[in-house]
């Protein structure tokens, strides 16, 4: 439809440049994961998988990975339950303060993570709650809640009242309506929100660094290691994580994109 104009070529070139800027920092560690690093110099002569073998023996990293997964899954589950409940509350309740509740939910998403992290740090200290993975889980839940809540609420609002009325008309109880009518309609929103929230939690560094005790999650572990300089197995780990997140994104996009975008365009 469009001609290939000079402007368009320039535009494409600029876009290309930006993609190089975005992917450069990702590909550097991945490419070097297949080579041996000695004295800060990469030996390009032959590729190998040594870094991956090292990774298997790195207990600190593996524990951190375990912690990250534990925190991510817990935070996502908590945020889904809470988000679903709060979104339903906002949608269906007539309570006068629900707008304010919504505002509170959005705060950790609007404020920089350092503020949320410090607020929680001081709060846990005030109530004499020792910092541990539990405080990290709470921090992550608070952080991802806004996103989960918002995704569910958008779906709930696109859901007509007539389906719910029909359910009541047919004699279903509130709980039955929730389980048999509302929940199935929320399914893809819940899955999409869960994946996005997990991705956010997986990489959350700034809140975690403030509210964690002695337990490390992966980003914290990486952060600590950076000061001492990287070992090659980190590069291997990065490559694995990227592969993992790419798959996750593809799954998430299948769940989210087709519906959300096509309905918006229609």
């Amino acid at each position, binding site marked *: 439809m469009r001609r290939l104009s000079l402007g368009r070529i320039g*535009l494409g070139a600029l876009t290309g440049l930006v993609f190089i800027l975005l992917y450069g920092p*990702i590909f550097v560690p991945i490419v070097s994961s297949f080579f041996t690093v000695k004295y800060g110099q990469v030996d390009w002569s032959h590729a190998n998988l040594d870094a991956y073998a090292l990774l298997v023996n790195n207990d600190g990293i593996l524990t951190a990975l375990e912690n990250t997964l534990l925190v991510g899954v817990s935070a996502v589950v908590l945020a889904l339950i809470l988000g679903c409940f709060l979104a339903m509350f906002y949608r269906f*309740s007539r309570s006068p303060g629900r707008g304010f509740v919504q505002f509170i939910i959005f*705060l950790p998403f609007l404020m920089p993570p350092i503020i949320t992290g410090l*607020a929680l740090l001081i709060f846990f200290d005030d109530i004499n709650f020792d910092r541990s993975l539990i405080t990290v889980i709470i921090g992550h839940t608070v952080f991802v809640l806004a996103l989960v809540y918002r995704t569910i609420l958008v779906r709930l609002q696109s859901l007509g009242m007539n389906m719910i009325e029909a359910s009541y*008309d047919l004699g279903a109880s509130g709980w039955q309506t929730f389980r048999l009518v509302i929940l199935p309609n929320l399914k893809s929103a819940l899955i999409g929100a869960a994946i996005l929230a997990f991705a956010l939690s997986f*990489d959350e*560094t700034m809140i975690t660094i403030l509210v964690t005790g002695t337990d490390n999650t992966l980003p914290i572990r990486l952060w600590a290691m950076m000061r001492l300089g990287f070992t090659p197995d980190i590069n291997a780990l990065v490559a694995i994580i990227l592969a993992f997140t790419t798959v996750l994104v593809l799954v998430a996009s299948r769940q989210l994109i087709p519906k959300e975008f096509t309905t918006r365009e229609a």
Partner: protein
Amino acid sequence: MKTRIAGLEVNQIGRTPWPLTLLAYGLPTFFILIPLLSFLTYSFFWVKGTELHSSFQDLTFLNYVRIFTDQIYLPVLWRTTVLCLEVAVLAVCFGYPVAYFLASLQGRKKYMFLMLLLVPLLMSYVIKIYAIRSILGGNGFLNRFLMASGLIDQPLTFFVFNLQAVLLALTVLLIPFAVLPIFLSLEKLPRNLLEASADLGASELQTFLRVVLPMSLPGVIAAASFVFVLAIGDFLTPQMVGGNSGFTFGRIIYSQFGTAYNWPFGSALSVLLCAVVIIAIVVGSRFGNKRGLA
């Protein structure tokens, strides 16, 4: 209690039972609002030696007085604010063409490119900072490239451990956040306006300058405010690439909770940071689209 006749009252599926209402108010209040408020009150406490004065008879404005009288804090806040504004402007300058390009693509291609843009966001932030540092560093890829191409014969050292490095690193990290709001505002442009403009004899450039650009400005402002807030709250990137001269406000706050161990003073500094962030958000939502939560 109102009687409910088979769901005839739209918007109201009966009354919410009070325990649920209590939970709906209580949980966000307890885990979000109260921490934020205790944070605010902390800024009125004070520390002497290792002893924390936290009784309510003993509140003080001293932390704030110190911020406003000391020669260090306000200049750093100002420098950081300017730096983050620069990051926002740069990110928008890079982000706009990308958003425009993406918006002009058709069908599947568009979402494929959008996905490509989002994948780096899911990549570990810490790793990206580290990689950027190693690319920019004295022995890094950039210097090698410049030397190999004969542009320079000595490695350049001004890419790392100063404020320019922070600027570069933050811009690269935050560009995707600038693209998204602009992309969404370009997507919302009614096609018939563009067609009308073309019908009336405007060139592609004229249409862009007089129709597309003005109408996408709210997206641009939303994007800039989004990036600004993310940049000013970041204390990891400056810590990693800033070195000794790249001191930002976020780093100062973080150090109060770490090495300096003065939580009340750190809280007061954070309250100031909050104020700047709130201004940015208000400007962003007043003149821009609502922030892209959806």
